[in-house]
C-alpha cells in the first residue's frame, strides 16, 4: 500500500508542474494589457511602459515563469496588482469560504444523491425510480445560476426568510456554525448541491441496479442472507465507484462556481476568480488557478488512495 501511495505521489509532480506552466501561459497569451488593474484605460503608452517595467512584465516569458515558479515553490505567489495584498492570503481566504460552501453542498447533495440513487436502484422501473431519476435529471439539467435566482426570489425577496447575498453578518473574518452564519449558507449550498446530487443519484442508481442483477447477489440470497446483509454487500461494491464520482464532484465544488458565487456574492474562490478575470489581475489569477488546480490534484490523490484502501484490486492494477 505504501509503495502504491509513493508511486501516486511521484506521478503528481509532473502534473503539478504542467498545471503551473499551463496556468501561467494561459493568462499571458490572452490579448490585452496585464496592467489593466492598476492602469486606467486612458493612461499613456509611456506610463504603461514605465509600470510594465516596474512589475516585470517586460521580461521574456520564460524568465517570468522561472521567477514565478521559484517564488511559488517558496510559498510566495506575489501580490495582487489590484489590491496589493498577498495573493496566497487572498486565495486561502476565498478557498476557506468555498470549502465551507462545498462541505454544506456536499452534505446535501451526496446525502440526497445516495438516498435517491439507492431507492431508484432498488425499485428500478417503478414509479419511484422514475420520480427519483427525474429529480436527478432536473438536478443536472437546470442551470444552477437560474435556480439560485429563483430561490432568492422565493426565499429572500418574497418570503424574506433568508439573506439574498453575502457570507455572514458583520463581516466577521471567521466562519461560525451558528444560525446567524448558516442562514447565509442555505440558498447557495442548495443551489450548489443540485448537480452533484443529480450525478450521484444516477451513478448510485446504475451501480445498485447492476450489482443487484449480478449472480453473487442471488447466491447470497439463496444462502439465506437477509436483505440488510445483501444491502451491505451492495454498498461495499458500489462504494469505490461512487466515491470516485463524489471525489470528482467535491473537487469541482472546491474549485468554486463563478456563477453561483457571483449570484450570491459569496466571497469564495469562484468570486475571486471572477474578480481577478474582470480586473485582469495576473498574479491573483495565476495564484488562484494554481491553488485550485493543486486542490484538485490533491483531492484526486486522496480519492485514489481511499479507493485503493477499500478495493484491494486497484492496488494490483
Amino acid at each position, binding site marked *: 500500500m505504501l509503495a502504491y501511495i509513493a508511486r501516486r505521489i511521484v506521478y503528481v509532480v509532473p502534473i503539478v508542474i504542467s498545471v503551473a506552466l499551463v496556468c501561467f501561459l494561459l493568462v499571458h497569451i490572452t490579448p490585452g494589457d496585464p496592467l489593466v488593474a492598476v492602469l486606467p484605460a486612458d*493612461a499613456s*503608452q509611456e506610463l504603461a511602459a514605465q509600470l510594465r517595467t516596474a512589475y516585470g512584465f517586460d521580461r521574456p516569458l520564460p524568465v517570468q515563469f522561472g521567477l514565478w515558479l521559484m517564488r511559488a515553490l517558496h510559498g510566495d505567489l506575489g501580490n495582487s496588482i489590484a489590491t496589493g495584498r498577498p495573493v496566497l492570503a487572498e486565495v486561502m481566504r476565498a478557498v476557506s469560504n468555498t470549502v465551507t460552501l462545498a462541505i454544506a453542498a456536499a452534505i446535501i447533495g451526496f446525502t440526497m444523491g445516495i438516498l435517491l440513487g439507492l431507492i431508484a436502484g432498488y425499485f428500478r422501473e417503478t414509479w419511484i425510480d422514475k420520480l427519483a431519476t427525474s429529480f436527478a435529471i432536473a438536478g443536472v439539467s437546470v442551470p444552477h445560476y437560474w435556480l439560485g435566482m429563483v430561490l432568492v426570489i422565493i426565499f429572500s425577496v418574497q418570503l424574506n426568510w433568508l439573506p439574498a*447575498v453575502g457570507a455572514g*453578518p458583520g463581516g466577521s473574518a471567521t466562519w461560525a456554525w451558528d444560525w446567524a452564519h448558516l442562514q447565509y449558507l442555505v440558498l447557495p449550498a442548495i443551489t450548489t448541491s443540485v448537480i452533484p446530487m443529480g450525478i450521484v443519484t444516477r451513478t448510485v442508481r446504475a451501480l445498485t441496479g447492476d450489482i443487484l442483477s449480478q449472480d453473487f447477489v442471488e447466491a447470497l440470497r439463496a444462502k439465506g442472507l437477509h436483505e440488510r446483509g445483501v444491502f451491505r454487500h451492495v454498498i461495499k461494491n458500489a462504494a469505490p465507484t461512487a466515491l470516485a464520482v463524489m471525489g470528482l464532484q467535491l473537487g469541482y465544488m472546491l474549485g468554486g462556481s463563478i456563477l453561483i458565487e457571483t449570484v450570491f456574492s459569496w466571497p469564495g474562490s469562484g468570486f475571486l476568480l*471572477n474578480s481577478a478575470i474582470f480586473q485582469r489581475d495576473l498574479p491573483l489569477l495565476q495564484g488562484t488557478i494554481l491553488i485550485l488546480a493543486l486542490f484538485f490534484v490533491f483531492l484526486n490523490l486522496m480519492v485514489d488512495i481511499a479507493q485503493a484502501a477499500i478495493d484491494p484490486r486497484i492496488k494490483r492494477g
Partner: protein
Amino acid sequence: MLTKKNTRAAWIAVLALATAAAWPREASADTVLRIGMTAADIPRTLGQPDQGFEGNRFTGLTMYDALTGWDLSSAEKASVVIPGLATEWKVDDADKTKWVFKLRPGVTFHDGSPFNADAVVWNVEKVLKQDAPQFDASQVGVTASRMPTLASAKKIDDMTVELTTKEPDSFLPINLTNLFMASPAKWQHFYDKAEGADAKAKSQAAWTAFAKDAAGTGPWKMASFTPRERLELVKNASYWDKARVPKVDKMVLLPMPEANARTAALLSGQVDWVEAPAPDALPELKQRGFKLYANEQPHVWPWQFSRVEGSPWNDIRVRKAANLCVDREGLKDGLLAGLMVPATGTFEPGHPWRGKPSFEIKYDKAAAQKLMQEAGFGPNKKLTVKTQTSASGSGQMQPLPMNEYLQQALAECYFDVQLDVIEWNTLFTNWRRGAKDPSANGSHATNVTYAAMDPFFALVRFLQSGMAPPVSNNWGFINNPKFDELVKKARQTFDPAARDAALAELHAASVDDAAFLYVAHDVGPRAMSPKVTGVVQPKSWFIDFSLVSMK
C-alpha cells in the same frame, strides 16, 4: 407516523425558525446605511482607490479629501471644482508652472495628526518621487494619468505649499481632485513597525497595513474592513466642514457585482441602496415603493473616428450625416428604458464648457441622407465603415445592442456598418495603440466610453495632435491646427472664468467639426429603500453620502 404531540412540537419548531429568520439582522440604535456596490471588491482603501471613479466615489471621497473638491450639492447645476483642503490657490504671475496653495487651517487626520504642508508634499511624493520612502508604484497608475503635468511639491510654510507643473497648465486645480491626502503620521507608524528586508519591503508592508486601518481627513472614518466582503465607515463627527458631517452613524459598503443579486438584496431588505439595479426590475422596484435616482453624468458613449489617410470619416459631410442619422430619443426610450441622456456633444447645455456650437446634433434623417448623397453615397452605393467595440465592459452601458441599434439606424443613411467585437481589455489596449496599429483590424472607428470630468480627459487627449498614440488617446490621429491652438489657449489661461470660456470654445469647435459620433451619456442609476432620505444625485460620477439620512 406523527403523534398529535409531535405535530405540535414540529409546528412550534417551524414557527421558531421562521421568527429567527425574520428577526432584524442588524438591530442597533445607530443609523446604518447599507450600500450594494457594483464593484466585485472593496476599492483600495489606502488613499488612491482603484476601480475607476466608483473607487473614488466609495473609498476616496468618503475617507479622504483632496486639495480641491467637487460641488455635489445640486442635482440641477453642473458639478464644478470648489475648495477642499486648500482654501485658495494662485498661479505665479512670473512663472506659470508654479502654483501656490493656501491650506485649510485646523484640519486633522482621523488619527489626530495635523494636516499641513508637510502632509501635502508627502502625498505628492507618494506617487511622483521614486526615491521617497512612501513611494508606491501601485498608486501611480491611478494618479499620474489623472494629473499628467504635476511634477513636484514644496513646502513654503506650514499652511502654504507650492506645486510645480512640467508646463503651464491651468487644469491643475481640477486634476488635483484625484490626489487624496493620507495621513503621513499613521503611515510612518506602520513603517516603523514593519518588518522587511529593505526599505522598499517595509514601505510595501506599511501600505498594506495602512489599507487595513486607514486615516484620511474625510467625513467618514474606517471602522472595519473585510477584504472582498465589506467596508464599514463611521461618521467623522469632527469633520472640518460642519455642513458635511454625515447624518447617519455608519455606512456599510458591500461588493455585489451581479445586478440581479444587488436588486434582490435591496428587495429583501438586506441593503438600503444599490448602484445600477437590474434594468428589467425597475418597474417592480417602483411598484414596491423603492426610489430611483438618475442624472446625466460627465460620461460620453461615442464612436471615435479614425482620421488617418483613406478613412471615410475624413469627409465632414459623412461625420455630420452619422451624427444626424441616429434617433437618440428612440434609443433612450426603447432599448435603454430611459437610462441615458442623448448626447449632443461631450458637454450638454448648462455646462460651463459647453460653448455655442453652430452644428446642432439631433435626429434629422433627411438632412443626413442629403449630406451622404452630396458625399457621393446613396441607396445603391453604401459606405462601408467598420467599428471596433466590446460585448461588455465597465461604463460601456450596453455596447453590443447599442451598436446594433446604430447599425440599423445608419443603414437608413447609406452606411453599411460592420462591427468588430473584441474583448473589453483588448479593446482598451488597442485604444492606446491607435487607428494605425494592426490591432485596429482596419477599423474606421472605436467605441470606448470616456469620463468627462476634467478638460484633459474630456477634450485634450482626444483632440490635440500631440496626444496621438503612443502618447495618449487621440486614437484617430486627429490633426486639426484649430484644436491645437485652442488647447494651448485653454491650458495657458489661468483665470478660471476665462479658462472655462476657452474650453467652451474648444468644445464648440469639436462639435462643429463632428469630431466624434456623439450618442449618449450614462445616468448612473441607483435605487434605494424609502427609508433613505436627503439624497442629492448631482450631475457627477460622485455623490455626497454625508447628506443622506435614514428614517
